[in-house]
């Protein structure tokens, strides 16, 4: 299993190219997704399945959260994908185009059957659900809690906008509601919320603007379509020194107030309330997970 709980970035590596799969282990993404779905043509599904299985089992990159994206729920490949993926024992299996809780329950049940047959620990492999249609967004709350294995949901904006007959734009207002709906469902279920990709790999300014929205809304991470996006996205989800110091000051002020048995606590002329404490603790937890020492030096 991954040592880190960070899920700031996930990068897809197509299951057809050994060199891309090997290289993907050397980038800075927190989560590496070996893909059996969209990046693999129908004639190479069998080859990709073997390659991904053996990569995860015998050549697994250290310190990364490893996922396998299987083929679609209603595809002819899914069952064999699960047979291979569960036995490879990644940290999670990523399921594309989830629309109903029942689909997740069926996959959970199948995974459990395979784990039992294979003599593996039951329930250890998590599930990430890709929400890629209006139906998935509408059912996000039920999907998020469909199985204890569900550890994250990720919005797939391209397919979602297609299902809405909407146009995909860089400002992203067409996915604003979907982002919030998925995010709230994740928060309710206590799981990780992963934002949609920013597809234009040559537009670094656009990525920055998109990330401002991603982070402001409260997502925990974002899927990258290209390795060059990884460091920018990681930086977005890593608290700055200023944010860390502010968080520390909030907690220090609360500590001081508790010592003095003061009912109300203030900082810089403003009241420190429960949401501020929660945000401060969250910031410090993220900083710690990212390996930042509170003095500003990285571990």
């Amino acid at each position, binding site marked *: 299993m991954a040592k880190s709980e960070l899920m700031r970035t996930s990068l897809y590596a197509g299951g057809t190219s050994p060199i891309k799969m*090997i290289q993907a282990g050397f980038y800075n993404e927190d989560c590496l997704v070996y893909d059996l779905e969209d990046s693999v043509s129908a004639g190479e599904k*069998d*080859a990709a399945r*073997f390659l991904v299985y053996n990569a995860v*089992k015998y050549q697994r990159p250290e310190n990364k959260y490893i996922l396998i994206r299987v083929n679609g729920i209603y595809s002819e490949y899914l069952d*064999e994908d699960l*047979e291979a993926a569960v*036995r490879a024992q990644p940290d999670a299996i990523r399921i594309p185009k989830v629309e109903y809780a029942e689909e997740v329950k069926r996959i959970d049940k199948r995974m459990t059957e395979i784990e039992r*047959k294979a*003599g593996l620990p039951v329930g250890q492999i998590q599930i990430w659900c890709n929400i890629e249609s209006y139906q998935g967004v509408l059912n996000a709350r039920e999907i998020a809690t469909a199985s204890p294995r569900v550890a994250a949901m990720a919005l797939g904006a391209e397919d979602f906008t297609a299902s809405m007959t909407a146009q995909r734009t860089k400002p992203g207002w067409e996915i604003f509601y979907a982002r919030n709906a998925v995010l709230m469902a994740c928060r309710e279920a206590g799981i990780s919320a992963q934002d949609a990709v920013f597809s234009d790999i040559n537009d670094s300014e656009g990525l920055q603007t998109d990330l401002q929205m991603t982070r402001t809304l409260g997502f925990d991470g974002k899927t990258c379509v290209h390795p060059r996006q990884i460091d920018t996205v990681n930086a977005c989800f890593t608290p700055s020194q200023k944010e860390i110091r502010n968080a520390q000051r909030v907690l220090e002020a609360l500590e001081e107030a508790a010592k003095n048995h003061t009912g109300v606590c203030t900082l810089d002329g403003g009241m420190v309330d429960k949401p501020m404490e929660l945000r401060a603790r969250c910031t410090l937890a993220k900083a710690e997970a990212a390996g930042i020492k509170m003095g500003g030096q990285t571990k």
Partner: protein
Amino acid sequence: MKIKRPAMAGTLESSDVQIILEPNPGSGIEIELNSDVKTTFGDAIEATIRQVLDEFSVTDAQVTVHDKGALDFVIRSRMQCAVCRAAEGKYDWGKEDPNG
């Protein structure tokens, strides 16, 4: 498994290996290995190929290997795929399951 027809798996990309498997009835396993690192890793590559053939109980096959610096997991994967294609069979993912 019996090799029924010629089959290929893998590519000639860097870090990959292309494996061509052909029927070789009654003549055992014959391996032709082409690799820039044959002097250093030839024995290891051949050992992996023979090991996979053994796991599938393949006794007769002509194997042509074009290695482009593939790691062991890649050679294993391409061999498994080539055998299944050549034998026109599905891989039994549960063959080593203790509770199967």
